[in-house]
Every structure is written in structure tokens, then in C-alpha cells.
């Protein structure tokens, strides 16, 4: 066991950890030492191959196949220098005021969050792609939404030098996505922050204020900043930003559950479906930016969002209900598929939670509630309407009575896609928006941190990621994570002089 001493230890380097690292990095000039401990690798440019299984294994926890305890939802979250910002599509939307009101966190002000969000719009080059860069898959969605009277908006995205390879979710092979791996972390390193990759944190020892971590040697990526081995890192302040599964798990392994009854609880994840419609002729879908439009038309009334998407062969196949000749027929037409990602806006419930098993591994209990199942079925019907309004010949709805719904049956969607057709396991549900588990709030009885990410009762311990969310973000969460992390950094900066060596 080797010992290290730093002033600030940050666990995780994604939207939360990367942002905190950069925001605190000017302190390095005053002699403050900052280390970021990241479990994933820092890939070399040539290691972004765009090959589906290879990149999933390199950039996602368990290759993107983490299952909830009852196996009803697959959770995908990144582990890499830059965390999940390496593998998202760069969609950047601020939290809505209505959502913040639902969160009801005293001391978390909408104007403050907006101001900080705007800061990261500028810093991460968030903008709208010009019309000529919108591919058919996206254009058809937007046009059909307008035809049907569904509200539709273009996604601001944080790309710079995008070549339209369409491989965002496998890590951009052209280095165009402006996640923390391209913007905040390099700047933090230039200012003196040390980023230690391949470094898995096991636990924090609150009595000694140390972080237990293991640095691994890996066959890929740049070598880690520290020699492989086990470490005990003593820090004046510790910021946990390992994501909504691993942040609660680290705090649970650290023995903090006794005082914090909400720790691990109120996990939400925007349960999602990948839906496809098949056209008679090829459309541009796998080239170009995959996610240019969204519709929140049904967010308030039916509890779901619709977003454009374009996934890879295995993920697409996995999303289909059924087997045999029909999926084969659909899959053989990848260049004619239009895709929509449906996101259910799930409620934060105490029973949906992260725990750790006997080996200390995180386990996620998540129940697909009746309202969520109903939302997802309604979303399948709405998506089918969009596909048909786009000119699709047939549609696959996983809860459908038959594998395909043909265009000629588009007036019978309520009958052909029944609520009872949704069965967990039969319908493949996934999630990449993991939230909650260390929720902000007023006190330890019902929350884990205060409105500035400070863990109740532990003045040197902070949380700075989506696990802070008291409820679902109801929109893609990354900019909100960054805005909250910016607040956490401000609080750490203010408190650090009071914290003992």
C-alpha cells in the first residue's frame, strides 16, 4: 500500500468530476494539489476505432451491459478519461424551470443554474448544427412532428470539427465531441491537476480522510500517472463524482449509510426504448450527427420525450422484441431504418436504489412502474405515427401484437400496440441517463447533500455528479451536471482554507 497526500481528491472525470477539476485547477498555482482518480482508461487517438463491441468494452462499464437486479433495464455508463462525456452525443440542454420547481431544493436557484449552464455552453462550444448537416433520419423526424402538430426542437450539441461519422456513442474517432476529455480535463492538467486513469476507488475512510484506490496496468490507453498498485490517498477535501451508480456505492462501502438514510435511494434513469421504422428506400442515417432533434410535446401530458437516434447493429438488434426471420428482415435493411429514442420521465421513488452486495459491488434495484410502462407504450404509438408520417413502410413496436405494424394499419395503433403487450424482459429497456442516489436536500433524514453538494455532517466530503439530482432531469442531463459541479467547486474553494491538512 502506497501513501499519497493531496489537498483535493476528485473521484471520477466525467461531466461532474471533469468540471470540478477544471474549476478548481487555478488553485494549483497557489500550491494546492489536486488529483482526479478515474477508473477508466485514457485512450490514444488510434484506439477510437468505431467498432461496436470493441469500443463498448473499452469505454463503458461492463461493456454497457450493467443490468438492474431484476434484469429489466440495461444501464450504460462510461468509464474513461472524461467519463460518459466521451460516449454521449453531445446534446446540451439546460434544466427547465418547471423541473427545478419539482426538485424543490432550497438554495438551488434557477437563475444561478442558468448562468452556470450558459458558461458551459460557451466553454464546450455548444451550438446548433446548420441545416445542411442534418441527415434524413433527423430531418424526417422533425418534418413528421410538424405535420402531426407535435412540438419539435433542434438539439444544441457540443461538437467542434464534427465530420459526421455518426459514431458519437462509441467515442468520436475524430476528436470532435467537446466533452470534459477535450475541454475541462486538458485545461485542468495544464493548470497542474494530476489525472490518474485506470484508478478504481474502493472506499473512503472517513476517520482518516483517506481514499483507498487501486491503479491497474491495462493493455490499451496511455499509462496511468501513478504506478500500478494500491494507494491510500489522504486529502483535505474529497469530491465524489463517479456517477449515479458508483458514487452512492463508494459512499455505502465507506460506511456512511448509517447517518444518511437517503443514500443510494431515489435512483431515476429515464428508461428508454430504441424504436425503428423501415423505409422502402435507403435514407442517410448512420452518417451525420445522430441526434439533432427532440420532441417534448408529451413530456407533461404523458411523461415521455422523443429523440432522434441512430444505433449500431448489435444494440439495434438487441432492442427488437422477437427472434427469427422478422428481426433478420428488419436488420438486413439498416440503411433504410429510421430510429427514435423514447425516454420515460420516471418519478424518484425511494425503493429504486443502489446498494452494494457482499463483495462490495453496486446493485441497482429498479422497478418499471405502471406509469412508466404506460408512458413507454404511448410513446411507441406516438413514434409509430411519426414513422408513418415520415413515409415508413412498416414499424416495429416491441409491445405490438405482431412484430411489424404495416403502414396500412396506422389507424389502429392503439389496438395493435396494447398496454398488456409490454412485458419486462420481452421489451428491451435501456438507460444512459442515470440520476439520483446522493440527492440534494435540507437534511440527512431525506437527502445526502446540501444544495451545494456538501455531504451532510461531513464538511470535507462533496458529491458532484448526476447522483445529486433529487428527481429525474426530464431532459438530457449533462449541462445540468456541469452547472451543479460548478457550484460544488465554488463551495469547495470557499471551504478549503477551513479544512485541516
Amino acid at each position, binding site marked *: 500500500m502506497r501513501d499519497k497526500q493531496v489537498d483535493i481528491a476528485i473521484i471520477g472525470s466525467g461531466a461532474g468530476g471533469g468540471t470540478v477539476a477544471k474549476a478548481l485547477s487555478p488553485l494549483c498555482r497557489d500550491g494546492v494539489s489536486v488529483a482526479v482518480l478515474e477508473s477508466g482508461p485514457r485512450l490514444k487517438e488510434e484506439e477510437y476505432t468505431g467498432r461496436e463491441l470493441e469500443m463498448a468494452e473499452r469505454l463503458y462499464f461492463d461493456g454497457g451491459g450493467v443490468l438492474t437486479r431484476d434484469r429489466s433495464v440495461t444501464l450504460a455508463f462510461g468509464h474513461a478519461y472524461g467519463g460518459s462525456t466521451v460516449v454521449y452525443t453531445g446534446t446540451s440542454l439546460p434544466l427547465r424551470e418547471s423541473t427545478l420547481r419539482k426538485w424543490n431544493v432550497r438554495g438551488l436557484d434557477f437563475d444561478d443554474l442558468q448562468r452556470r449552464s450558459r458558461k458551459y455552453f460557451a466553454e464546450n462550444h455548444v451550438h446548433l448544427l446548420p441545416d445542411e448537416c442534418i*441527415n434524413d433520419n433527423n430531418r424526417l423526424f422533425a418534418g413528421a412532428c410538424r405535420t402531426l402538430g407535435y412540438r419539435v426542437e433542434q438539439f444544441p450539441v457540443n461538437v467542434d470539427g464534427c*465530420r*459526421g461519422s*455518426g459514431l458519437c456513442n462509441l467515442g468520436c474517432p475524430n476528436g470532435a465531441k467537446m466533452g470534459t476529455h477535450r475541454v475541462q480535463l486538458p485545461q485542468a492538467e495544464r493548470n497542474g491537476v494530476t489525472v490518474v486513469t485506470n484508478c478504481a476507488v474502493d472506499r473512503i475512510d472517513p476517520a482518516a480522510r483517506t481514499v483507498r484506490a487501486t491503479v491497474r496496468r491495462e493493455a490499451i490507453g496511455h499509462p496511468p500517472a501513478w504506478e500500478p498498485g494500491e494507494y491510500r490517498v489522504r486529502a483535505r477535501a474529497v469530491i465524489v463524482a463517479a456517477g449515479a451508480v458508483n458514487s452512492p456505492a463508494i459512499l455505502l462501502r465507506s460506511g456512511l449509510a448509517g447517518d444518511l438514510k437517503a443514500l443510494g435511494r431515489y435512483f431515476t434513469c429515464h428508461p428508454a426504448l430504441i424504436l425503428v421504422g423501415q423505409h422502402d428506400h435507403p435514407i442517410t442515417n448512420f452518417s451525420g450527427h445522430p441526434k439533432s432533434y427532440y420532441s417534448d410535446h408529451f413530456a407533461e401530458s404523458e411523461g415521455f420525450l422523443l429523440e432522434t437516434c441512430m444505433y449500431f*447493429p448489435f444494440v439495434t*438488434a438487441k432492442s427488437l422484441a422477437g*427472434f*427469427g426471420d422478422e428481426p433478420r428482415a428488419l436488420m438486413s435493411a*439498416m440503411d433504410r431504418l429510421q430510429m427514435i429514442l423514447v425516454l420515460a420521465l420516471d418519478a424518484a421513488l425511494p425503493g429504486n436504489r443502489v446498494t452494494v452486495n457482499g463483495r462490495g459491488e453496486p446493485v441497482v434495484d429498479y422497478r418499471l412502474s405502471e406509469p412508466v410502462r404506460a408512458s413507454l407504450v404511448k410513446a411507441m404509438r406516438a413514434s409509430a405515427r411519426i414513422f408513418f408520417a415520415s413515409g415508413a413502410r412498416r414499424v416495429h413496436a416491441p409491445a405490438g401484437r405482431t412484430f411489424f405494424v404495416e403502414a396500412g394499419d396506422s389507424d389502429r395503433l392503439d389496438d395493435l400496440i396494447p398496454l398488456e403487450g409490454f412485458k419486462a424482459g420481452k421489451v428491451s429497456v435501456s438507460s444512459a441517463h442515470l440520476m439520483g442516489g446522493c440527492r440534494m436536500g435540507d437534511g440527512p433524514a431525506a437527502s445526502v447533500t446540501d444544495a451545494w453538494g456538501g455531504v451532510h455532517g461531513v464538511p470535507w466530503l462533496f458529491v458532484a455528479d448526476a447522483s445529486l439530482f433529487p428527481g429525474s432531469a426530464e431532459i438530457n442531463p449533462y449541462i445540468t451536471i456541469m452547472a451543479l459541479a460548478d457550484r460544488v467547486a465554488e463551495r469547495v474553494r470557499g471551504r478549503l482554507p477551513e479544512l485541516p491538512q
Partner: protein
Amino acid sequence: MYTMFLLSVGERIAPGLHDLDAAGRRRVAAIVERAVAARPPRVRRQLSAFLHLLRWLPAARYGRPFDRLRGAQQDAVLRWFHDSPLAPFRHGFWGVKTLIFMGYYGRPEAAAEIGYRPARAGAPPFHAR
């Protein structure tokens, strides 16, 4: 040890598997075996138990294990698991199906076969900017 049986089930799940040559089938098997090996021991035991069930439960109805049924009978068995009233059976089938699809569609050569040809160089409209 269960890869051969898994691939025989896979031929009903992803019929294209049947058309692959020996090298293609080996690539599918390698992907599946690698994915299974990466799972925790508990998950591997569950998969093994489910495959055992899938193989022998049909004997109660047809008098023969799964791999000795006709294609249509195999499909009927798989359909029952896929839409079973029992969630663990549905989830077990989903796991098997996912492994097969990973092996079949995860082969790099599968992409071109199904019309999926992304290019690192991207799309022309982006180049003009």
C-alpha cells in the same frame, strides 16, 4: 461447454447464423464466449442453468430435448419463453437472445452485410463546412 447448444438455439434466433461458414461460426462463438467469460460467476451459473432448462423443459411436452425438435417446434418453445408469464423465463431468454445477437451482429463483417457502412471520415456535408 454450452457454446454448441447455444449456437444451435442461435440458429433459430438469428437464422443467418445457419448460413455462415465454419470460420464465421467460430467468430460468433468467440464473441459469445468472450462475453460470457467477462460476466461474474453468478451470472455464468444462471446462464448455464437457463440453457439446461431450455434444453430439457421441452421434453415434458414433446418427449425430446430442444436440440432434437423440428424447427417449428423449437420456435414454439422459444416463443413461449420469449412471452412467458414468468418474468425469469423472459429475462433468461432475453439474455440468450442478446448473446446470440452480440455474436452475430457484433462480427465486423456483419455491418456491411446489412447495409451499415459508417465511415470515420464522416459525411460530405460536414466536410464542406
